[in-house]
């Protein structure tokens, strides 16, 4: 069976896997963004807070993904939970780091001006600091997403959702007729998804970054 025939036969399964892959990455990314930006907001004004946050998140990233999922399975069981937890944790670092860089990069004279015209702390954050930090945060989200696309494939190891299942099936039946096709389909699917997401981010950037600070 050629690769194209394989795709034709299995497109139903592949599309479901792809959809689930995209969906889990997207949802984890949303959670990671919220948590990451929150961590950034809480820590960016203190020197040691910044160090702690960056160190903690980059330490997480050094744990091999297979090991991380392996460690999570005994604690939360198989399937979706370990996948979501692992992906969210991995997704944090770029978001946290860029949020901190972005927030610290806001011109202090603008913060001074914001205080001077009578903006409260929350208002300053919401109306001035976060909008100005948004472009780097968005870049962080983009990097995170690319990373998560690959890591999500590992989730199949814990019976998680996504295109990883395709790859793992292929690896498990190496030598059989469809082994290569399966691995190839899974891998290419992930690449296509990654490209689609990247395109979406460019669009989101266009829509959400105000014209005044667009590069």
């Amino acid at each position, binding site marked *: 069976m050629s690769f194209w025939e394989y795709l034709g036969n299995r497109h139903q399964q592949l599309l479901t896997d792809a959809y689930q892959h995209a969906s889990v990455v997207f949802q984890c990314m949303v959670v990671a963004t919220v948590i990451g930006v929150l961590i950034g907001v809480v820590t960016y004004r203190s020197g040691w807070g910044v160090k702690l946050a960056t160190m903690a998140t980059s330490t997480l990233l050094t744990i091999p993904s297979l090991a991380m999922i392996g460690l999570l399975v005994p604690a939360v069981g198989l399937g979706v939970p370990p996948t979501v937890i692992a992906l969210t944790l991995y997704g944090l670092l770029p978001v946290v780091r860029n949020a901190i860089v972005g927030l610290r990069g806001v011109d202090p*004279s*603008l913060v001074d*001006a914001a205080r*001077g*015209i*009578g*903006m409260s702390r929350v208002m300053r954050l919401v109306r001035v600091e976060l909008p100005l930090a948004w472009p780097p945060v968005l870049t962080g989200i983009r990097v995170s997403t690319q990373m998560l696309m690959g890591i999500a494939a590992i989730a199949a190891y814990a019976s998680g959702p996504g295109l990883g299942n395709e790859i793992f099936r292929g690896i498990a039946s190496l030598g059989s007729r469809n082994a290569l096709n399966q691995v190839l389909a899974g891998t290419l699917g992930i690449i296509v998804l990654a490209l689609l997401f990247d395109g979406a981010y460019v669009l989101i950037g266009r829509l959400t970054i105000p014209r*005044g600070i667009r590069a």
Partner: protein
Amino acid sequence: MPERSGASGASIELENLAKRYPGTPRPAVDNVTMEIKAGELVVLVGPSGCGKSTTLKMINRLIEPTGGRIRINGEDVTGIDPVTLRRKVGYAIQSAGLFPHMTVAQNIALVPKMIGWGKGRIKDRVEELLDLVGLDPGEFHGRYPRGLSGGQQRRVGLARALAADPPVLLMDEPFGAVDPITRDHLQDELIRLQHELHKTIVFVTQDVDEAIKLGDRIAVLRERSPIAQFDTPEAILTNPADDYVSGFVGAGAALKRLNLTRVRDVKITDCPTVTVDDPVQEIFNKLRGSGTNEILLLDRHGRPYKWLRRGDMMRAKGSPARAGTLVSDTLSRDATLRDALEAVLTDTAGRVAVTGRRGEYTGVVDMETLMSSVQDLLEADRLEVMEHQHAPEEIRAAQTHAEQEGA
């Protein structure tokens, strides 16, 4: 501070205001006491690091004072919520501080929005303010700050500070870091605005000339903000309190004084004039009869046209059209005495015609008139200072000073 529409200034009193940062041996600002009248433009001037900015920022409590009181219009604001306070006090800073992600209109609308104005009112106010600071509302409304020149950004910054019509305006080196010509324009604009609005403005600068040009009164600050002298620009120039002030004001105080007086305020002399329509014979008669060497020929609208000397008419064979030298430079009545001096010095004959609003001739200044008016001015300044000084020994000192000068 009651909210009024078109609120003009409120008085500000600073009483023993002090700021000490923890862990530093000496306070950054020590015991500043100052009374600023409603509608007054007071300039704080001093070397960098003297605490003038700190003092300013304590007025809207961007920096919390560690001691002393601040009263605005009699109300003690040292204890009230700083956010509420700041919405009633306009604030303009050096780099303009416009938010780059908001349009010009959004920037200006910030404070009115915060204090809950309606949409329509905000929209009208933004247009009005843009107009007020000399920017075309239609053109600038939707632009982003990065598309504006430095001067335009400062104007928008000023508009934003004025947006909710606060009685008090704090300006922290608002015209710093712009080129001298733009700076000059902005200063003129501020003077014009202040004539219309009568806000109480506290203005911080390092530039003595700016202080002299803008201030109703100037506070010269020393290190850690004790006030070395707090007085009118005239008094500071002609009668500096001590060596520190005179050193800071710098050499050429008399020259700087010239910037404070306009040609309209001094006596100008007259010179015989004729118009181009007068018969030649009359021109001859005037020339001969005047006792001066030259007369001024005016055009049909009464504007200075040519200087005619005795010999000129002879050489031109009696035709005024060909005789004399064209008037190259005139002074308006709004020109400062410094401009006048400049013009007189560069004029080959040492005299310049003064013109009214439509360019019509009103008189002449020359070196002699300038000298005598400057002397009168300085003398008047000294007398005024003496009247205000109560300590007898100071009066005596000033008198001897005046006598020596007069001798």
